[in-house]
């Protein structure tokens, strides 16, 4: 494999950068973290480090040249290895990577969202383990660079829309074809104008004119039947989240109460349980918290309800929602029905299944509407405290931070205990801070006796 | 045969012919310097026709001329400066810079152009004469045209119409022997062009167009007859163009010898010689005329040089009486 050094994104709004200066030459040996180049952005000259170690085999971009983010700028390889020899395997592996994501794209809503929204945490690293931008192999990207073709907006003729070398060469011959899909829409000028005026997306209008042309009447019909479906599943999901969170923030008078809970007993119990249980029956700590929230609701019915316009309607069941973030972006909070019932092992199995299905986009609609309260655990990455926003029409949400070891006073002595900060956000129209405090108190008690959960 | 004119008369005829010649020579020079562009048709060699005819006409008569009309305009009273400025394309030209060399106009001098479609001026002349006739004004419309124009249908149509309606048009054919590059005998079936008008009942005559005095007398007599009768008359004025048709042509259609032969009849040189031999004028007179002409032309060039360009914003002016929306 010959890794490439690509034009890094040095800010969310950066689409391209100008190579101001190479700090290395072909044949130089570079190590991870070395400054390899200076890149000029709208914000100024920025020193850019390399994340590879090896020998610079080829510099692909000239000083002074402006290239889009993601454009290969240099090839770095083993000493003595030829650049060309290494290029092909990279191309293949990236194509394979495309195929993985594409299979996900075939699934519905959620998976589609992931395939489109995958974002590497460190985008500069080896071009990213998680793909970003147009699907194209490095060989294709390199050819695009040579021919000065931008891959952005280029229509891919390969499998699942992957951009091929032929696509790049064609684009180089015919020139840029911006907004390909939009230009293909057959629409009258007037219809296009009023669609723009009225915010109707022409891609979603069915044309009834000659050859399927969209005409003004079609636009008006589409407008009348709005809300039109968003462009993609990912967009649809993000819009739904945006709408829900905006509504929650606008309408729900939140109050917050917070408590730090000693997790020593719970974790000790869990360690023992997992040591003796079969691997298939192993639990994660989250399931204990989930069950504890459910059990606490048994005592605090005011938090087990939904807000229906003018009043809270109590729920007969206890259905706790679980916030599941999708690696490609996006968020779902499906409910585990009757979260307070059954064994922990059974709940764990249901939770595993639910998360898997959330990620593959095969949730049932009832799971999307049943919850009255949601549990969101963000401690995996070390966050200690969460101030969550309620998912309407639910009336409460519990946010958990990381379990961390802290000095803790037990019976007058300072000891080190694993503790977790739990925050309850609740709808003040339905409950009050006193009730919320009592709920957290119950939750704390329940977690001290994990064997009863 | 003597000239039988006064000294002053002789001086005027000579002066006007020299003024035209010097104007034309200067125009040729300025054309070479690209001060004058487009087509430029010079009158050199034909001055006796323009000078003799213009002097014979009254200032309230109408003039319709061709695209070789600098001399006609000058003698009619359009200033050399306005003519030169027009050829420059300046706003102070006699047509405001919109006409150029081929389209000199002057309403004040009843100078109706300046027509560059051969034969296109005939109906205009007929119409002007018709208007005068209907208004009861005893004016003459003098219509200048070349031998080439007699090939055109409008020549014959207009002879017919003016004869039929008895319109006061004086047809003045400046026969310079060439329709552009086609010699007279190669474009006209009847070599005597004066034979045409009588076929329509119009009296006609032919005159030596290199003799300014003969031209003046013939045109005067014909014009007065038109004025009296209200009916058209026709005069052929036989002349010769010394220069190319337009500014530059290869003159493949005629021999240098032929041109040199005709230059012996140069209307200015011959008239000057006769007037001097008859004691009407002296070399000092000629020198004075030349000096005056040189000054007039120099002033004209200065006038043109100093002229303003019409602003481009005014480009639509004069397309209609009022600019259209």
């Amino acid at each position: 494999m010959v890794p490439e050094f690509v034009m890094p994104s040095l800010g969310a709004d950066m689409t391209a950068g100008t190579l101001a200066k190479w700090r290395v030459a072909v044949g130089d040996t570079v190590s991870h973290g070395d400054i390899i180049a200076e890149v000029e952005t709208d914000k100024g000259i920025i020193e850019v480090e390399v994340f590879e170690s090896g020998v610079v085999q080829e510099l692909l971009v000239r000083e002074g040249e402006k290239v889009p983010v993601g454009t290969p700028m240099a090839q770095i390889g083993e000493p003595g290895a030829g650049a060309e020899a290494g290029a092909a395997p990279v191309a293949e592996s990236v194509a394979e990577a495309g195929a993985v994501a594409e299979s996900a794209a075939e699934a519905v809503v959620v998976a589609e969202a992931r395939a489109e929204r995958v974002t590497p945490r460190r985008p500069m690293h080896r071009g990213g383990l998680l793909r970003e931008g147009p699907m194209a192999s490095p060989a294709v990207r390199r050819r695009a660079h040579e021919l000065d073709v931008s891959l952005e907006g280029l229509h891919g003729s390969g499998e699942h829309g992957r951009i091929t070398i032929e696509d790049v060469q064609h684009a180089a011959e015919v020139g840029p074809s911006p907004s390909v899909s939009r230009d293909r829409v057959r629409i009258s000028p007037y219809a296009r104008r009023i669609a723009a005026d009225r915010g109707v997306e022409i891609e979603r209008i069915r044309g009834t004119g000659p050859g399927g042309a969209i005409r003004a009447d079609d636009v008006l019909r589409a407008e009348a039947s709005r809300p039109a479906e968003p462009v993609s599943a990912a967009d649809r999901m993000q819009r739904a989240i945006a709408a829900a969170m905006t509504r929650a923030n606008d309408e729900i008078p939140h109050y917050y109460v917070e408590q730090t809970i000693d997790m020593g007993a719970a974790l000790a119990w869990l360690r023992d349980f997992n040591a003796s249980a079969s691997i298939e029956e192993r639990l994660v700590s989250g399931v204990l918290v989930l069950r504890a929230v459910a059990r606490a609701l048994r005592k605090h019915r005011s938090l087990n309800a939904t807000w229906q316009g003018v009043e809270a309607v109590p729920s007969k069941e206890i259905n706790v929602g679980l916030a599941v973030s999708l690696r490609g972006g996006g968020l779902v909070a499906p409910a585990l029905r009757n979260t307070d019932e059954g064994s922990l092992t059974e709940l764990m199995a249901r939770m595993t299944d639910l998360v898997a299905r959330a990620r593959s986009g095969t949730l049932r609609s009832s799971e999307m509407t049943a919850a009255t309260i949601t549990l969101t655990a963000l401690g995996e990455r070390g966050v200690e405290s969460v101030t969550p926003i309620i998912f309407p029409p639910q009336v409460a949400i519990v946010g958990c931070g990381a379990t961390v070891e802290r000095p803790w006073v037990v019976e007058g002595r300072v000891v080190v205990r694993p503790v977790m900060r739990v925050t309850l956000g609740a709808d003040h129209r339905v409950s009050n801070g006193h009730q919320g405090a009592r709920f957290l108190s119950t939750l704390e008690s329940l977690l001290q006796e994990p064997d009863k959960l | 045969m003597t000239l039988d004119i006064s000294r002053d008369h002789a001086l005027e005829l000579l002066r006007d012919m020299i003024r035209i010649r010097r104007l034309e020579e200067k125009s040729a020079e300025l054309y070479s310097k690209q001060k004058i562009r487009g087509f430029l048709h010079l009158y050199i060699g034909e001055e006796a026709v323009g000078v003799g005819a213009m002097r014979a006409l009254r200032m309230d008569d109408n003039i319709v001329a061709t695209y070789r009309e600098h001399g006609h305009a000058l003698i009619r009273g359009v200033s050399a400066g306005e003519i030169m400025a027009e050829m420059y394309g300046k706003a102070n030209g006699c047509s405001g810079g919109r006409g150029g060399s081929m389209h000199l106009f002057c309403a004040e001098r009843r100078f109706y152009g300046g027509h560059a479609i051969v034969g296109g001026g005939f109906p205009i002349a007929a119409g002007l004469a018709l208007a005068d006739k209907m208004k009861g004004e005893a004016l003459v419309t003098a219509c200048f045209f070349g031998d080439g124009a007699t090939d055109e249908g409008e020549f014959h149509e207009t002879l017919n119409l003016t004869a039929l309606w008895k319109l006061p048009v004086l047809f003045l054919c400046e026969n310079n022997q060439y329709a552009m590059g086609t010699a007279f005998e190669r474009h006209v079936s009847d070599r005597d062009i004066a034979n045409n008008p009588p076929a329509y009942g119009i009296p006609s005559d032919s005159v030596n167009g290199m003799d300014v005095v003969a031209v003046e007398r013939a045109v005067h007599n014909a014009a007065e007859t038109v004025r009296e009768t209200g009916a058209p008359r026709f005069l052929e004025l036989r002349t010769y163009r010394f220069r190319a048709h337009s500014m530059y042509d290869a003159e493949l259609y005629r021999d240098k010898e032929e041109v040199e032969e005709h230059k012996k009849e140069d209307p200015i040189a011959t008239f000057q010689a006769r007037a001097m031999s008859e004691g009407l004028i002296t070399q000092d007179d000629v020198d004075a005329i030349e000096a005056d002409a040189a000054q007039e032309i120099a002033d004209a060039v200065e006038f043109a040089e100093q002229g303003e360009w019409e602003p481009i914003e005014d480009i639509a002016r004069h397309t209609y009486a009022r600019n259209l929306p």
Partner: protein
Amino acid sequence: MTTYREAVRTAIQTLLREDPRVFLMGEDVGRYGGAYAVSKGFLEEFGEERIRDTPLCESTFVGAGIGAAIGGMRPIVEVMTVNFSLLALDQVVNNASLMRHMSGGQFEVPLLVRMATGGGKQIAAQHSHSLENWYAHIPGIKVLAPATVQDAHDMVLAGIEDPDPVFIFEHQMLYGMEGPLDTESTPPSPWKAAVRREGKDVSLIAYGGSLHKALGAADELEKEGIVAEVVDLRSLRPLDHETIVQSVSRTHRAVVIDEAWKTGSLASEISAILAEEAFYELDAPIERVCTLEVPIPYAKHLEDAAIPQVDRIVAAAKRSVGGA
């Protein structure tokens, strides 16, 4: 009710009576009374000086009209038909239209030229031309196409009043048409188009003889629930962009009807204007209903098939509205 012919005649008669500068000339305008009988009786009333039968020399009598206009008269020149006017095109294109400009504004040509135009009477190819667009192409002249009895009258008056050369095209099928004539009221500006029938679904844009076919088509379309607006161009030069664009901005569809051949026609010009100035109002491709690109045949069925008819206009309007 007055005929179109009578309306033209009334206007010329009024002018001859009121303005001594006005005279009429053309082929057979005197003894014959005009090829379309417009000037019948004029010779007796106004005499040979002012009602002038010309020889058959279109170029020269049109040119003489130009000269007389420059010379201070107000000539009305009748060129029997547009077909013969081709012989006078040089005088129109090189003299009438250019004189004011070339002379830097020193000479004007207050000339009125009238001629019959159009086909439909089985007089075959050489006598059925519609070449108004040739004239409308030329800056320096103005072109009018009266389609109603009132306009036939008013436009003659306007044409003489105008200081520039005005060409009036009278469709030969209209001379016998009857309509109301008001000689008292102040007429509307002849240079503006008129909405002859208001509608909302499609604009039928026509002039001259085609206007009545467009109105007929609008009647047919109404039976099928399509409410067509009918615009009468009236003036072909200058063209009233505003009225056309406003109409299409209401209906969003345009059918242009023109008896000329489609290529290079006024219908082409209108289409281009709409594309330039009303592009974002168009909800359907512009339709043009013009004469087929063949010489106008003599045989009735072929002539009918060649020139625009109501059924073709209806079909074009339906394509425009329905997308069929």
